[in-house]
């Protein structure tokens, strides 16, 4: 379960240490818990802790939260203006536009 995430993160030239014991998968979605949540989570949960992303047809789709975590690690970033910021949020290709 870690492989797909590690591969994704490594593309940004950072290493993000995610504790395997605190990661849970529900269907095709991945979540990161903390120690306290881990004690309370049951197997039938719908959502828990930090949502990291999902795998669809073999491709990993990161969550905003995972992207924040990567950005905090000083990964290769670009700075965009407010118009491009909005395009990105709306799921458009910032470079093409």
């Amino acid at each position: 379960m870690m492989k797909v995430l590690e591969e994704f993160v490594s593309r940004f030239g950072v290493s993000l240490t995610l504790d395997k014991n605190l990661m849970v998968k529900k269907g095709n979605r991945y979540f990161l818990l903390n120690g306290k949540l881990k004690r309370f989570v049951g197997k039938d949960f719908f959502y828990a802790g930090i949502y990291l992303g999902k795998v669809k047809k073999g491709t990993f789709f990161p969550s905003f939260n995972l992207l924040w975590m990567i950005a905090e690690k000083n990964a290769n970033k670009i700075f965009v203006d407010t118009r491009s910021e909005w395009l990105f949020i709306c799921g458009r290709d910032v470079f093409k536009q």
Partner: protein
Amino acid sequence: MKCSPIQFLMSGKEFFINRYAALGWKYENVELKPAIRINSMNVKEEEVVKRLQSLGVELEKISFLEKGYWVLRSEFSVGATTEYLIGYYSTQEAASQIPATLFADLKGKIVLDACAAPGGKTVQLADLMENAGVIIALDVKLRRLTALSNQLERCHIKNAIVYNLDARQVSKLKIKFDCILLDVPCSGNFATDKNWFKQRTIKDVEKNAKLQKEILAETIKVLKDDGEIVYSTCSLEPEENELNIDWAIKSLGLRVERINCYGEPSPTKIFGKKLDNQIKNCRRIWPGKTQGFFVCKLKKDVSV
């Protein structure tokens, strides 16, 4: 669906506004102002206010809330800004910002949000808990859990676990809670639904009141002895509010705590029926500045 003659008599605008008059409120139509609540775990309040003002949004601090603002003017929906999408604030009606603030202390606690979707109050609880402790959020409608999850992700909530579970089965989780928010399913009110009078009958009110009692009766089983329940509805109908709480005092051994918030003390006599005196500690909010609302705080009466 056809109504029986009795049901017909016990529905419609006149029927309901006569009930409100009997409770001491004269019906008036209201125009609600949209409101937002700052998620202060994600941003400094001054910063988000400044950013919104620079976009031309006119805000006014809500006097009875700590983190709430009225949106007086905006050229666009305040739910479509970058600041909103990265969780700096939530759009949340003013009265509905009250319940979560009534718990004595939420930090590090185990909290149940028993009827949680679409998650406005779950996010507010997490904000008050500074994203620590644990929130268990339930909703019986699977479809509504997607909206709830989206809110949690948008606002960077880290301390919640969501289950698709009927609150009437919460003891299955085998968890004891310090704080329980019961923002129960209710009949709503005319201020947020312009077809309300056309669509609601006393039968709906009674059906909701029954469900609310069942939720109260089950959740008390998972409340720690010194724990707190905040019960709220956006209904104006006493069956879902004061009458249910009177029943909870008498049948579940709960007591009503004093609270200090916007709204007026609930009447202790309703349609000729004398209720427990503690009912005056509940708060009833008639539509005006906000939508219609009811809220109270309950604890186990350990002296019983």
